[in-house]
């Protein structure tokens, strides 16, 4: 490895935030490809453009995805980057690790790859950044041996992820870690063997704080909630008062439905249960005094995705409340997902995310297709136009005779 200068990148070793340049340099010490990466990157910084090409079918036996093909645009100058593919590994739920597992990842990657990684990728995988085509199968074999599996890529179910949930959060309304694990395992085929119009993502958040940003980042957002009324511990409320916490201003005045009333005299909080939208605000501010209700579960929302093609979509409510307590409760969810994907598979165009398909064909057709009954929770507000499609078969029986009687 020749030591080459990287004056522009060196500027990015200054400052308090940890430097990725330093990290590439660390890898470069041990790995020729990483050393060349430094040079290509310096070149990008000089020229202000990327130098990577994608494409080519790369992968492992038995799977249709999990590896992203990547090639430098001047292989003659950067031979070690001629092939520099990404491996995606399924992360453990909630990105929890013991050091043994982490060191295993490092060791295998040191042996076969660049020694560079993203902990983690934006979808959630462990991203191993840069290896040769010939190494892909050996890498997979070794990781497989060590208990790891490939993540998703291509037109398939992408690697689901979840928030820390019951692992460390008092707000969790269902077991996000188990749901993510169990459901990922259920859909191994959908994840490893692309077969849909386009990609599809699931993210699990334990409550409406949505710490996985599932509503924006996943085609299916599973967001914890409860069905009854939140629980107030009046003693704890008094402690907040004693601590001079401004309950009225910080909590009640910002409750979006103004359903939480603070009584200065009694130092008690009361709630109009049916007006609460379970937005989490009060619970966030007073976790010691306010808790989600007892009847817990999740809201299922569909359609989230980013900008390309039809604009960014956020997921919208399809099932307001689904129980998610035991493994059995996951079954209805899995059934629902199967019906949803099937409908999309039948109706979606190539490279059309499910949100776009639903938008194009109409929520009505989608709901019929997946056999879910419409409820007002699905919409912020009803339609403003009168362009209703009527089922012409039903019509005969809902028509009205000239004498006013139903037909």
């Amino acid at each position: 490895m020749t030591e080459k200068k990287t004056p522009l990148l060196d500027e990015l070793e200054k400052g308090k935030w940890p430097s990725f340049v330093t990290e590439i340099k660390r890898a470069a010490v041990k790995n020729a490809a990483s050393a060349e990466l430094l040079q290509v990157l310096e070149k990008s910084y000089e020229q202000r453009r990327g130098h990577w090409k994608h494409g080519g079918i790369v992968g492992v036996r038995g799977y249709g995805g999990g590896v992203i093909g990547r090639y430098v645009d001047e292989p003659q100058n950067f031979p070690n980057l001629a092939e520099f593919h990404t491996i995606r590994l399924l992360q453990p739920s909630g990105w929890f690790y013991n050091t043994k597992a982490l060191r295993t990842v490092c060791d295998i990657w040191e042996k076969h790859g660049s020694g560079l990684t993203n902990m983690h990728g934006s979808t959630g995988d462990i991203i191993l950044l840069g290896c040769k085509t010939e190494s892909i199968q050996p890498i997979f074999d070794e990781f497989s041996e060590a208990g790891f599996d490939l993540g998703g890529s291509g037109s398939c179910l992408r690697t689901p992820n979840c928030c820390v949930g019951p692992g460390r959060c008092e707000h969790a309304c269902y077991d996000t870690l188990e749901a993510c694990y169990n459901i990922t395992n259920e859909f191994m085929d959908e994840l490893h063997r692309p077969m849909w119009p386009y990609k599809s993502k699931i993210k699990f958040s334990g409550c409406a704080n949505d710490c996985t940003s599932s509503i924006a980042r996943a085609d299916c957002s599973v967001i914890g909630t409860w069905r009854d009324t939140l629980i107030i511990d009046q003693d704890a409320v008094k402690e907040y008062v004693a601590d001079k916490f401004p309950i009225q201003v910080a909590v009640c005045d910002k409750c979006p439905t103004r359903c939480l009333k603070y009584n200065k005299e009694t130092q008690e909080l009361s709630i109009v249960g049916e007006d609460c939208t379970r937005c989490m605000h009060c619970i966030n501010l007073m976790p010691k005094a306010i808790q989600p209700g007892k009847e817990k579960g999740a809201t299922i929302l569909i359609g989230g995705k980013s900008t390309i093609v039809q604009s960014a979509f956020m997921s919208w409510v399809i099932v307001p409340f689904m129980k998610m307590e035991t493994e059995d409760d996951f079954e209805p969810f899995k059934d629902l997902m199967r019906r949803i994907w099937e409908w999309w598979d039948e109706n979606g165009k190539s490279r059309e995310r499910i949100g776009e398909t639903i938008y194009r064909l109409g929520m009505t057709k989608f709901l019929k297709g997946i056999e879910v009954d419409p409820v007002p929770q699905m919409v912020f507000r009803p339609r403003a136009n009168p362009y209703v499609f009527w089922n012409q078969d039903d019509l005969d029986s809902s028509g009205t005779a000239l004498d006013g009687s139903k037909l």
Partner: protein
Amino acid sequence: MAKLDQGPPHYKKMLPPVILENYGKWKYHEIPSPGVLKHVGESGVLYSVRVGSPRLVSIDFVRDLCVVADEFCDGFLRFTTRNNVEFLVSDEAKLQPLLDSLEAKGYCVGGTGASISNIVHTQGWVHCHTPATDASGVVKAVMDDLYEYFNTMQLPAKLKMGLACCLNMCGAAHCSDIAIVGVHRTPPRINHDMIRKGTEIPSLVASCPTGAIRPDPKNKSVIVNNDKCMYCGNCYTMSAAMEILDPKNDGIAILIGGKTSNARSAPSFSRMVIPFLPNTAPRWPETTEAIRKILELWIANAHKGERVGEWVERIGWERFFSLAELPFSDMLIDDYIFSRETFRTSAAFKY
């Protein structure tokens, strides 16, 4: 020879002296009693007495108004944007006699302040070619039923109703507190002969918002894809060969919560809460009842000063449906161009 382009009569000729004197110099107003507005200007006071009108009137009705205006208003009156009549009284002494006379003659005084006013409406069966319901008849039935809210001012806020007898929406009902909209529910039945006789096929094809119509060159006519048709009737407006009237299935949809004033909240569209009610002429009991129910729910639940839409937006549409005990169906979920913005992209909602 007729003069071309002379424009409307000059409004100044139509103004009573008290208005000419206070023109642009009004200071404030009060509503001394339902139907009576008192406007105080820098140099004078004007009373306006608002009287309900069926809008579709005979010239004798107009002449009757003139008689009243001559007697109490120096011959001046006006009509409102909701087609009510306003008698303009500059002499306070004539106010009570006017009111007494109106009462005696059976005129309806009201429509001011927190009341319902006349329903903006359209032609219906009386004179139009696309109606899915009548206009004047429905208005009459609803106004009769809600009359107690016209001649009092006991509502949470103003209630503005609109009726359109077809989706062309000549009653501009699309931003009303309560909108009554005539809807067709079956695709057009094509009269191929008529089409061959003179319909401009490209325009007809282009007229369909959902692209349901395609040319049928073989037949020199068109074909309608019934599955894509949502019965808007735009093709029928273009060509009478696309018969859309269907007595058995035409009827009324109810939309609520629109407004156009900018006071407090931005203007907003009305939104569908009942997709269909039958055309039970002559008095549309299902419609009058549905409207009364919504209105009474609003009265019972709204804060003072809250328009229908402001109330529903505060409590949430999902809550409205459960309070109103109205069935929610896929008919009410938007599936047109701007549908996406209506989908609930939030995990926060009520039951």
